[in-house]
């Protein structure tokens, strides 16, 4: 429920802080190998990664193979059920649903990854500045984070999308809205690890050795804060895809005729009783991708946080 039930609450902020590992340069090779081995031990995560890879491949290559134009209406072929010619059936204007699901996947995955990239970028920036500089800058930035976190997230999403809606192409708007409203968790996360790392011996040592700040942040602090960021980013993509569909359901998502899984579901609302396939396939696509991403995220968490695995060996 912490995922506010409707639109999950952005990037998870409550991940355990990075611990014990000191991924110092040089030691990283074997550490990565160890991580990889731990990840491979998580069977569902591995399967999910394969599924995800397949879906991404299908979404990238599929449209090229499809004989149909995703936007071309065929008014004589409205609401055809699944068949060899149209494996997913056709929609309310006779467009091939499989082709549209594949094209929609491009948009939905693009929105998911780019929104998270924006969020992670902003979050790391704010968190790093805040955690590294401390003092007044830290106070001001963290109060701003507090203000942002004091709005119900969906309210913010709605207001921001309504506000921006006729300024830019809707794909860009959704990326910006989801990205700029989801960075707060990451910022807190990064700030937290910076604060705790700052006190650590190897950082003290680097400081004493006269390492420059930029070098200190980029080579020592950030890599050591990476683990939770990676996990947050992975899960964030799943959240963003769900959020896009929720905004679409409210009419604020990607605008037709550009297909996205979210707006295809929205479109299906009127027709799902008579032509269930128009709702089933885009819904299934979202479901599969999000489940897979969640498993991969879970696997990454296990792999990057060794304490979980210790228990298994007992």
């Amino acid at each position, binding site marked *: *429920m*912490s*995922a*506010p*039930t*409707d*639109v*999950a609450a952005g990037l998870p902020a*409550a991940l*355990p802080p990075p611990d014990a590992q000191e991924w110092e340069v040089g030691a990283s090779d074997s550490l990565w190998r160890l991580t990889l081995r731990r990840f491979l031990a998580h069977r*569902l995560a591995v399967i999910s990664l394969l599924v995800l890879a397949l879906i991404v491949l299908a979404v990238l290559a599929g449209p090229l193979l499809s004989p149909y134009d995703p936007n071309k209406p065929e008014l004589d072929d409205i609401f055809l059920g699944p068949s060899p010619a149209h494996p997913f059936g056709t929609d309310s204007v006779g467009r091939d649903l499989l082709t549209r699901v594949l094209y929609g996947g491009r948009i939905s995955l693009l929105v998911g990854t780019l929104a998270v990239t924006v969020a992670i970028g902003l979050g790391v920036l704010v968190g790093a500045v805040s955690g590294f500089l401390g003092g007044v800058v830290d106070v001001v930035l963290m*109060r701003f984070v*507090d*203000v942002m*976190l*004091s*709005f*119900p997230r*969906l*309210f913010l999403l*709605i*207001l*921001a999308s*309504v*506000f921006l*809606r*006729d300024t830019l192409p809707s794909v860009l708007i959704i990326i910006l809205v989801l990205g700029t409203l989801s960075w707060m968790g990451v910022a807190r996360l990064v700030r937290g690890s910076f604060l705790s790392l700052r006190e650590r011996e190897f950082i003290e040592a680097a400081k004493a050795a006269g390492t420059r700040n930029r070098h200190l942040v980029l080579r020592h602090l950030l890599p050591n804060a990476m683990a939770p960021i990676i996990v947050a980013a992975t899960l964030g993509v*799943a959240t963003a895809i*769900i959020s896009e*569909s*929720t905004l679409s*359901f*409210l009419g604020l998502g990607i605008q037709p005729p550009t297909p996205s899984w*979210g707006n295809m*579901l929205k479109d299906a*609302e009127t027709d*799902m*009783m008579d032509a269930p396939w128009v*709702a089933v396939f885009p*819904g299934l696509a*979202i*479901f599969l991708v*999000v*489940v897979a991403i*969640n*498993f991969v995220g*879970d696997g990454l*968490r296990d792999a990057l946080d060794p*304490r*979980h695995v*210790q*228990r*298994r060996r007992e």
Partner: protein
Amino acid sequence: MVLFAGRRVLQALPLLLGVTFVAFLMINAVPGGPLSAYENNPGITPQDIQRLQHTLGLDQPIWIRYLQWLRHFLTGDWGYSYAAHRPVLTMIGERIGNTLLLMGTVYVITLLIAIPIGLFTAVRQYSRADYGVTFLAFAGLSMPTFWLGLLLIIVFGLGLGIFPLGGMSTPGASFDLFDRLHHLVLPVATLSLVGVAHYTRYLRASTLEVLTQDYIRTARAKGLAEEVVLLRHAFRNAALPLVTVAALDLPELFAGALVTEQIFGWPGMGRLFWDSATRSDYPVLMGIVTVSATMIIAANLLADLVHAWLDPRVRPH
């Protein structure tokens, strides 16, 4: 402790002020505005629009309107809805109870189901049952709420005809507890599924973390029964972060679940927000955002205090 609490409360006030100001700017920046519904109507003259703008005070600069809003708000006058011409406080009052009923039920049910499952999956990590529950939990997390809600309506409402399709009560009937519960089932199921998934995962992770701690090893080494170890030692410590997370979720009890309320026609706060947002009903929007933000800030405060109370290490001296 009291000092700590007092300081945090004082810090919260400017935060709330900041939130209302940002909210006011955002709400007013939305294109269209409260009179846009009239502007397309040839029967409504530009003079009519001008007069209405003046009546609603919309012809004033934004900062003046904000200060006016703030002044009235502080004296307990939350203003009147532009559309419904009703006091904002009354409108929110009508809805907040319904939302509390829905979300409170969801909250309780979620915790009742999630806690045992979370503990169980942690203890049996990587067992078949763990994989099964994990899979179900992720499945629950991976469906858009509206999709799940519509599915439940189609299957249990339209298909099987077991549950009503929406609303809070049978129209025309007088109040009846069973009828109310009957209407609660599907929306609560929709929201709980997601909630259970989330809490289960959370509790599983924090329990796993606790299980690796030295004192658990010590307890086991002392030959304590596994149940005692789990319930008395592990759960109590694993519950600490859970309390924080649960406290942070409290605001939803008041803010409601917009999409679920929308799908099931539940007359709660979420729908009031949506209806007001679609017609730029500024006073109502401001009221709702302020209530929600207050709740969120208060919940954060509560989480901090509980945390400080349970874990003396974080308590400042």
